[in-house]
């Protein structure tokens, strides 16, 4: 067993894990609070990535700077989406809400396909190539930044939920909607903010990813499926769980690719997903309630 390869795999896994966690953070927040399985989340990621790309190609803005624009933009998009499309059907059966997000996802993805074509875009940064040595492993600088950002973001979200008023309202609304209403919390507003924040999170993810991954309309769906596995693994509604879940899944993939044909590696995560859903849907850290 080639130790160097293993270490590299672990390093890559950690970095990818951070990225998965970033995407999953918003998803788990939305589900944890509103119990909505938000399948359009992936498309928001894609939108953010394209946003960064165009900021870069049109204005020469570095993605790590344009994130300042992308974050509020995605927040607005998310809130708007919630306000106009989800809010009307909040009391409809869950399946309808999911279908709506699927429909929106299909629409947005193909709109992007129409506008931007399927050509892969990339952002080449002057420092993309800088590699950092961690023992026998090598990381690209942008990847490292993504990893640190995801940890940072998780901490920020955690702080937000624990220590701010908004956070308290969100937690109340997610625990018991009726009771929250009774205590005077404007639950609909809380949901709006939650959806916005969740989307903003994925906006950050998109900005950071744009320096690492190729950009194409279908990229959203690709990450979304993995993000779902991460969310379920970590426990829906649990960010720290999402972070750890991200690491676990990514490590499984990167270490797994050492032992099996690379094309079959995604099957691993789907199998994990199925097993999780069957036997432990609350994931590793989630609460008993589903």
């Amino acid at each position: 067993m080639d130790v160097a390869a293993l270490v590299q795999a672990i390093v890559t896994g950690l970095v990818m894990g951070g990225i998965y966690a970033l995407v999953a953070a918003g998803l788990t927040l939305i589900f944890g609070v509103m119990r909505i399985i938000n399948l359009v989340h992936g498309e928001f990621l894609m939108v953010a990535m394209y946003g960064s790309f165009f900021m870069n190609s049109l204005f020469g803005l570095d993605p790590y700077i344009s994130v300042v624009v992308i974050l509020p933009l995605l927040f607005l998009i998310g809130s708007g989406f919630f306000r106009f499309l989800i809010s009307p059907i909040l009391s409809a059966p869950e399946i309808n809400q999911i279908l709506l997000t699927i429909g929106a996802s299909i629409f947005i993805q193909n709109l992007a396909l129409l506008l931007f074509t399927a050509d892969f875009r990339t952002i080449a940064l002057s420092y993309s190539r800088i590699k950092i040595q961690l023992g026998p492993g090598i990381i690209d600088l942008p990847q490292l930044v993504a990893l640190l950002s995801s940890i940072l973001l998780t901490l920020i979200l955690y702080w937000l939920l624990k220590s701010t008023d908004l956070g308290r309202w969100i937690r109340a609304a997610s625990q018991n909607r009726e009771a929250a209403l009774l205590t005077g919390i404007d639950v609909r507003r809380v949901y709006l903010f939650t959806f916005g924040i969740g989307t903003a999170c994925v906006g950050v993810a998109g900005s950071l990813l744009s320096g690492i991954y190729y950009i194409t309309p279908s990229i959203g769906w690709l990450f979304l499926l993995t993000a779902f596995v991460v969310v379920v693994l970590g426990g829906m509604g649990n960010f720290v769980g999402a972070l750890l879940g991200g690491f676990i899944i990514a490590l499984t993939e990167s270490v797994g690719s050492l032992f099996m044909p690379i094309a079959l590696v995604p099957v691993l995560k789907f199998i994990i997903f199925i097993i999780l859903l069957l036997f432990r849907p609350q994931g590793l850290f989630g609460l008993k309630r589903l």
Partner: protein
Amino acid sequence: MAFFFLLIPWLTDSRYFLHIFVMIFFFGYLATCWNILGGFAGQHSFGHAVFVGIGAYTSSLLFAHTGLSPWFGMWIGGLLAGLVGLFFGFLSFRYGLKGPYFLLVTIAFAEVFVYIALNVRAIGGSSGITIPLAGDAPFFFQFNGKMPYYYIILMMLGLVVWISYIIQRSRMGYYLIAIRENEDAAQALGINLMRHKLWATVISAFFSALGGTFYAQYILFIDPPSILGLGLSIEIVIYAIVGGIGTILGPAFGAFLLFPIAEVTRGVFAGQTGGIHLMVYGLLLVLCVIFMPGGIMGRLSQWKFLREDGPSKR
């Protein structure tokens, strides 16, 4: 109206026109099959293409390797799909997967199949399978003209619509609807959840697979993305939902309405990337969920003279 459909092939010379109808009936067929599990039983599967694909692959592989006529291979495919459905259904229902969790599992399950199919050379891998040409060979489920295919799929559609009708009016239909509306209450009333959900799954899977064989014999080429993929699964669901989930004619009607739209957009925007019709589908799905959750048939059945017998309205 059924007579009209019988006459169409005689009224037109255009192969293209017939092809459109064949595809409409095909998707209507699949959507109706899906509806047995998704509409009647309320278990929304987003991986139904798996069953279609199993049917298509089974009959095609048997034909290509052993020369077994797809007319026979079809039933084997159906059986296999039924077994897979049984296995999968048993696992899912046994562990209490419902609603969105069931939905996610079906997606994951289907994706596993797609990946495996893409990577196993023996069944074609990513190159798929080209069904051996036998020319005009009715015994081998191949015809030169479109007309035979037209009638076959029309009959199949009629068959599953009839089966849906029978199920809906039968005791099982009532049980399924009870399960759909409120599982706990249904169980409290003594309805065996597992048994009926499994039956719905197996029936739905079996017939979907037969449809898969039809597709293989009509198009003469199958590969994982086209016949096993998430795209097909979602398409089926969209037809069923926009047409009218839980109704008998709804899913077929959905195909009737939506497929031509796809063709028109494909034609009008020729040269563009083929995603426009998907945009329309996505938009329709969104609008449908907000304004017409029962689909078109659901809305129409509020007009008395179109009301179907039985408690099928969502």
